[in-house]
């Protein structure tokens, strides 16, 4: 019986921590004023926020006696996809010059986003007749 009560407390605690982190992520999104700094708050704080909410769901399902392991999968896919979407948003920001232009790299020519496509590749269909 005490294990049941402990599990309920654990669920409540993870829900509280998780929603707290999500709230901080939203505050950061509203508060910062530059596109790049804005990107930091939701992509990062969100991972732990959602992680704790999923942990609560897992503990609760174990408490109810039917095991659920989908949450691990959700977490894994979230960790794989979150950096990619953040990377694309950052690339769009750099491309549109919405943020401060980054310093050029030391060894190569330029950043791949800023590189202008070479004109004579012959891959694009040319206007004919």
């Amino acid at each position, binding site marked *: 019986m005490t294990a049941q009560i402990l599990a309920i407390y654990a669920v409540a605690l993870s829900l509280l921590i998780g929603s707290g982190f999500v709230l*901080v992520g939203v505050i950061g999104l509203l508060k910062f004023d530059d596109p*790049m700094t804005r990107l930091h708050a939701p992509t990062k*704080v969100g991972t732990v926020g959602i992680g704790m909410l999923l942990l609560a769901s897992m503990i609760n399902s174990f408490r109810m006696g039917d095991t659920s392991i989908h949450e691990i999968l959700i977490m894994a896919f979230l960790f794989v996809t979150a950096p990619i979407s953040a990377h694309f948003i950052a690339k769009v920001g750099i491309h549109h010059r919405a943020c401060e232009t980054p310093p050029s790299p*030391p060894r190569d*020519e330029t950043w791949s986003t800023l590189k202008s496509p070479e004109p004579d590749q012959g891959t694009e269909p040319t206007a004919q007749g």
Partner: protein
Amino acid sequence: MTRAFRRLLPHPFLTLILAVVWTLLQNEISAGMVVFGIILGIIIPLMTLIWWPDTPKGFRLGKMVSYSFMVIWDILVANVEVAWIVLTVPNSKLKPAWIVVPLELRQPEAITVLAGTITLTPGTVSADLSDEGHSLLVHVLHTSDADAVRDEIKTRYERRLLEIFS
């Protein structure tokens, strides 16, 4: 024997991951589903073989596991730090910075893992790669010493990834 093994399982790790994901999707472990997952794990890599031209060589699974645990711990610690910055540092005092990380890693998979790690650990976002793939552009949310952040990325993450993908 090894050639037959290579023909059947061109990407052993992909096979393993597919089987595990399929089993987890069922939400309960039964022998039939594990077998079906392994069958899928063999068929899917064979069907998508032409899109996976190279197999990463010399991948050390044990070190990757310990690396993952270190990254998860870093994510937890740094989340609290970023939450603190969001709540306490006003916009006018925020010092964001671009830093350029020169890369020693050459394999695309290794660079992808490094970029993902940098984005997941709060306070830093990997924003772009240079056109030849020799440096990584990273945006830092709040720092007073950009060089220290760069050195930490190099010593803490890149050195370990060099060992994993050697």
